[in-house]
């Protein structure tokens, strides 16, 4: 490869070996360079690197010579033609996502863009990417001859022998080590081992998930080889993961509640146990609804979506009188709430504690086993209705709410007579969302017999044109 000789012959005698190329992890190096850590023109050559202590955090990967990095860059570019102009440090091109290539994934906007072209770095590898690519230092780099010249062009501009010399001579070893270490730490991908993650979670929980700030987390963790940046991106992932988990939990819990509620509701005569009455329609799924409503059925929505929450809040206080003059067509068919209404409520409840209007009839849920023990129809359900919702004192809710057998603290007084608002809200709900499954799933009477009966009573047709 002729280019090789180019390298080696001129400014970079040290790089004559081909092996170096393979051990290069370019993108790591320069990820955050422009974040204020203006590094002096840096040329890392193997001897310096050899001096560096090997930290636990994956040092090997981020061997970084600007040269090779550029080369790698180039090789990437070969696959993506448009990158050609990005030689000097623009990292905005997205690399191909080959597993072995360092630049294959870029999760973050490329900070390197702002870096002066000294490093010709392209993109940065996120930890995720690196996880996939993680070869612990051995990476196949595809270097194509034709790109090398490009690489070197840019490099030439930056890497001047004189500079290198300066680097080597003016810096004390200590400084150099520290400096390199910082750079390495900054850009290298962190290997989030379970232990490391555990400490991270500890720190976060200590601070409080919402208040956890990367710098503080970093302090709490006290691990040298982590940078604020590493923590920040990990935190972001962690938070989104949590949300996802919580949502799923909530949904699952709610389904459990519903099932139990149906069981309780279906067991009149004070048995109080949660037997599912055999003739109850299976209410866990989506019981048969009139075909015309099927198209309103939405798949379960993304939890935590802000618009959903808002729309739910808007809807609840709404007085059904506005809608009742219409036949049972949902006035807001564009609304698209998740069909699993109780779970939506539940979700809403859990997330937005201030979003519930009084008397909001979150789906009637059995509150506690103790209540159910007395239970007849009456004791379970009205309790639920007028209870102001707190941290869901319902079985199936995440355990820490559970307390001892389902009571999570003092309950509000049980009111056996449903409040007007709850009724209102429940009714409103039915009117606006007719696709919802029937709460009890009673066997419907035949239309004809109803109509016949009505006619006998003097009601010619329904829906009536006037109430």
């Amino acid at each position, binding site marked *: 490869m002729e280019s090789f000789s180019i390298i080696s012959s001129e400014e970079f005698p040290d790089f004559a070996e081909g092996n170096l190329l393979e051990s290069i992890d370019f993108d790591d190096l320069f990820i955050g360079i422009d974040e204020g850590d203006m590094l002096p023109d840096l040329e890392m050559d193997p001897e310096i690197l050899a001096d560096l202590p090997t930290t636990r955090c994956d040092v090997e990967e981020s061997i970084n010579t600007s040269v090779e990095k550029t080369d790698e860059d180039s090789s990437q570019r070969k696959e993506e033609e448009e990158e050609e102009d990005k030689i000097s440090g623009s990292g905005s091109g997205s690399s191909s996502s080959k597993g072995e290539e360092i630049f294959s994934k870029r999760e973050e906007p490329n900070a390197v863009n702002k870096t002066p072209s000294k490093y010709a770095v392209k993109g940065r590898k996120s930890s995720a990417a690196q996880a996939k690519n993680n070869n612990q230092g051995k990476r196949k780099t595809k270097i194509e001859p034709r790109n090398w010249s490009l690489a070197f062009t840019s490099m030439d501009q930056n890497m001047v022998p004189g500079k290198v010399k300066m680097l080597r001579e003016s810096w004390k070893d200590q400084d150099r080590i520290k400096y390199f270490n910082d750079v390495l730490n900054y850009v290298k991908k962190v290997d989030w081992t379970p232990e490391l993650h555990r400490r991270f979670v500890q720190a976060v929980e200590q601070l409080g998930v919402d208040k956890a700030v990367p710098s503080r987390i970093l302090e709490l963790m006290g691990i040298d080889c982590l940078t604020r940046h590493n923590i920040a991106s990990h935190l972001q992932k962690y938070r989104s993961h949590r949300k996802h988990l919580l949502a799923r939990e909530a949904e699952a819990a709610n389904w459990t509640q519903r099932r139990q509620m149906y069981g309780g*509701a*279906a067991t*009149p*005569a*004070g048995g109080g146990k949660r037997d599912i009455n055999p003739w109850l329609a299976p209410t866990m799924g989506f019981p048969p*609804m009139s075909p015309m*409503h099927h198209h309103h059925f939405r798949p379960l929505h993304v939890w935590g979506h802000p618009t959903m929450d808002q729309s739910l809040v808007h809807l609840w206080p709404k007085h*059904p*009188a506005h809608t*009742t003059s219409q*036949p*049972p067509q949902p006035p807001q068919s564009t609304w698209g709430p998740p069909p699993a209404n109780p779970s939506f409520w539940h979700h809403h409840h859990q997330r937005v504690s201030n979003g519930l209007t009084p008397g909001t009839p979150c789906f*009637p849920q059995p509150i506690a086993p*103790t209540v159910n023990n*007395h239970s*007849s*129809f*009456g*004791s379970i*359900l009205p309790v639920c*209705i007028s209870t102001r919702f707190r941290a869901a004192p319902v079985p199936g809710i995440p355990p820490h709410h559970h*307390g*001892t057998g389902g*009571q999570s*603290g*003092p309950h509000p*007084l*049980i009111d*056996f007579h*449903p409040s007007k608002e*709850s*009724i*209102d809200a*429940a*009714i409103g*709900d*039915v*009117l606006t969302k*007719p696709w*919802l499954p*029937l*709460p*009890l*799933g*009673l*066997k*419907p*009477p035949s*239309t004809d*017999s*109803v109509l016949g*009966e*009505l006619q006998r*009573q003097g*009601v010619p*047709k*329904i*829906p*009536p044109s006037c*109430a």
Partner: protein
Amino acid sequence: MGDSSTSYIHMVQHLIEKCLIFNMTKEECMEALSKHANIKPVITSTVWNELEKENKEFFEAYAQSQSKQDRMSEEETSRMIQKMISDSSSKDPDE
């Protein structure tokens, strides 16, 4: 076309079921539906009756629990409240 009637009846049934969950009587239900949903009481009543015919057992049990509940409600309520109070106060030291 019976479709709109069917769906209307379905809606009324749905509403009635909601009232059942609230443990309301037929009369209460008629009133509520009339007030909140503008449904003629006669319609509510008819649908209720028809439902009852189709779901005899349910409604029988429902009626039972209603009467039981009326009789016991006060007593039950106070008992429950006391239990809750004692439960929560016994829990408190733990928290």
